[in-house]
């Protein structure tokens, strides 16, 4: 026996004006999404676990929760529409459903990703990269080259294995930092005498060893995370806009559809 809700949805009788919506035009189940997001935002501060996501992360979570709650507050009038297959109402109904699903997916995915970008995960990432580099077989990875010939090129950064506290080999990046601009000696010029043709002079500079963990940490926190937060905020803004569109589609679509029986009657 079908559930009462399913029966009411499949009814073809148009809803009488002013009749309260008996079925789930405001489904409670989907409120789980914003509620969970709100809870998650609170938990990140309340639970004594080191998963700090920063004030921007918290703001984004709260924003998604608010926008998600707005989505759930929009009455689902389209489920009551008596739409003939292939009709414009059916297309509109399908569009609303698809948009609701897509926005809901964004509402779940982005907050989950925000939660995944907490300090614990971010701090584990550099160590993981370092371990990965440590596990690399330099001989096979570098195509059989066991050493790198250091030439007079000043832009090349070289991966070295530098011993730390005399026990482990830690990967690091060698960065050449020139301290003076390269001098070009020209034949016949005031600075060069007797040379044939031009040549690059000596390049003075300093070699720095940059710890890979720091490099990855800076890369993630300085470039990847700001970009991610910008896109998350853009996703929040666009979700808000599309929720507003869903609202318009539900309300206006319902009003326009309510005119149809009269049109049939008059024609």
């Amino acid at each position: 026996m079908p559930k009462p809700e399913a029966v009411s949805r499949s009814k073809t009788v148009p809803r009488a004006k002013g009749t309260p919506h008996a079925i789930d035009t405001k489904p409670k189940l989907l409120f789980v999404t914003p509620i969970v997001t709100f809870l998650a935002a609170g938990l990140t501060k309340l639970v004594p676990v080191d998963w700090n996501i920063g004030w921007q992360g918290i703001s984004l979570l709260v924003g998604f929760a608010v926008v998600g709650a707005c989505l759930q507050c929009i009455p689902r009038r389209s489920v009551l529409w008596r739409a003939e297959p292939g009709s414009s109402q059916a297309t509109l109904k399908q569009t609303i459903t698809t948009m609701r699903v897509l926005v809901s997916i964004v509402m779940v995915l982005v907050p989950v990703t925000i939660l995944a970008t907490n300090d614990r995960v971010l701090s584990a990432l550099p160590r993981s990269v370092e371990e990965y580099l440590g596990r690399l077989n330099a001989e096979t990875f570098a195509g059989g080259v066991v050493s790198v010939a250091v030439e007079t090129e000043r832009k090349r950064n070289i991966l070295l294995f530098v011993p730390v506290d005399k026990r482990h080999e830690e990967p690091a990046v060698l960065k050449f930092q020139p301290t003076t601009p390269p001098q070009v000696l020209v034949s016949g010029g005031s600075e060069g005498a007797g040379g044939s043709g031009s040549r690059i002079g000596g390049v003075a500079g300093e070699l720095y060893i940059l710890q890979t963990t720091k490099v990855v940490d800076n890369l993630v926190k300085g470039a990847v995370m700001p970009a991610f937060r910008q896109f998350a905020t853009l996703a929040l803004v666009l979700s808000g806009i599309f929720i507003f569109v869903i609202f318009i589609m539900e309300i206006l679509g319902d009003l326009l559809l309510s005119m149809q029986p009269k049109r049939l009657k008059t024609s």
Partner: protein
Amino acid sequence: MLPLLQSLTIVGMIGATFFVYQTFGPRQLSFTFTKREKKEWDELVRGRLGSWLTVNSIFATVTSFATVYVFFIGNTLQFGWWIVFPILTIWGGGFITNHFTRILVSRRHIAKRLASGDQSKAVLLTLVLDGTNESIRSASIVRVVALTNILAILWLEFSVFADVSSKLIISESIFWGAIFLYGFAFSVLYFTLRFGLRGFLFADLFHGPIIVIGTLILLIGTFVFLIGVPSDGGHDGRLAGLFGRILTEMNAPKAPAPTSPLLSGVLFAISCLFLNSFLVLITQPHWFRVWMFGEKETTLQVTSLSITAVFWSILILIGGLASIVLSGEDVHGACKAGNVDGSVQVAVCFLQQITNGFPLLAVAFWMAGTGALFSTADAQIYSFFSIQRFDLREGKIAHAEFKELRPAFYAAIAAALFAGCYALVRFLKVDFDQLVFVLLPSCLNIVPALILAVRGIRQEPILLWISIVPYAVFAFLGLLNTDAAPVFAVAAPLMPLTVSAVALVYRPKEVAHAKA
């Protein structure tokens, strides 16, 4: 990263508008409403929905991207306190619009036409038509003026939009600007012709709030940006200090070098007084709303324009903040206040500065900007087809069938022409601000004919010519690259003002003869 965010916002807004258009279902046979549909429509808009639609439509149609949004942000620095005039005059214009609309609607033949349920009777040209040959000649002149004005506004909207976006997203080259313009113009024209021609009023229901929300975010974000940045000149950067600096900037307008700020301001004020007083009355969307919403259009006119005035004040506030941002110590080169030329460049430099610290303010700007572009463009496109296809002899819209519209064809041709004009204007280095002053008020040349219609006396086509010819001369002089060009540009609308004053007291010969 920033270009990607901006592009996604614009594309997102176009996509959202497409979905709003979808609410109205498939295209009907004709882009005009039938009498039966009008009857149903009357029932639909009788309640609060009708009020919302009316207010949103008036607000969103008047608030365009080029002539309002960028204009206010970019010109507050130039005009100082004179920039407040458009606000006062657009609000006062509500009373004038209501006054003349009520007189016109009370005329028996116009009232009868509007009550007939035939949408053709809501076309602006019918107000001029009274069955005489003179009225047909006047109506044909009014049609040319109205269509020219609509095309000019559409072109201006797309050009400024493409100019700002291409400069912010890719480069300042004319080529990229033209490419952007073609893309935007084609998308907006195609979507509107294909899906939303009859739904422009509903689309305003979406665009109106989006414009407001985007602008408020931009305002708050700019405040936060400025409070967080140490300011120069002994000000401490707090909120009160910022307001003090805005007042200082407003007190010292920076008009273009050869023009005195006082002269420039006075001419601007007179131009605004005349333009904004009649702007709503002489544009086609107003008469469609009169036909569609009836009494609501007049009863909610002042409320809607009050909301518009408040919103424009916010834009002026942002313009004041923009001049503070550009006078900062870290701003150099062409963007430094004093070096920056034209409202478009001010808007571009302002956005470049604030989005360095807060990239998402660009998202807010494009949210509101795209909404403003769409809301003006869709109403103008609908008006264009209604006026262009109006048969003066028959007194109704002919060939209103959708199958004759060919959306992709028209959109491609129009977008290509717009892009070509844009490239030419950029090549000739004509300032967009001067174009705003010259092109937007061209619709005022309709006012003399409307005044004769209000007075209920015979139309005189010669009055229209006396208005249009000097207007065109002044407008041309206003576009030349001379020192006096801004004065000519601002003075052009004074020509129709003068002729309208004549029309107000003009007596046709036969009336004088009859009295004698």
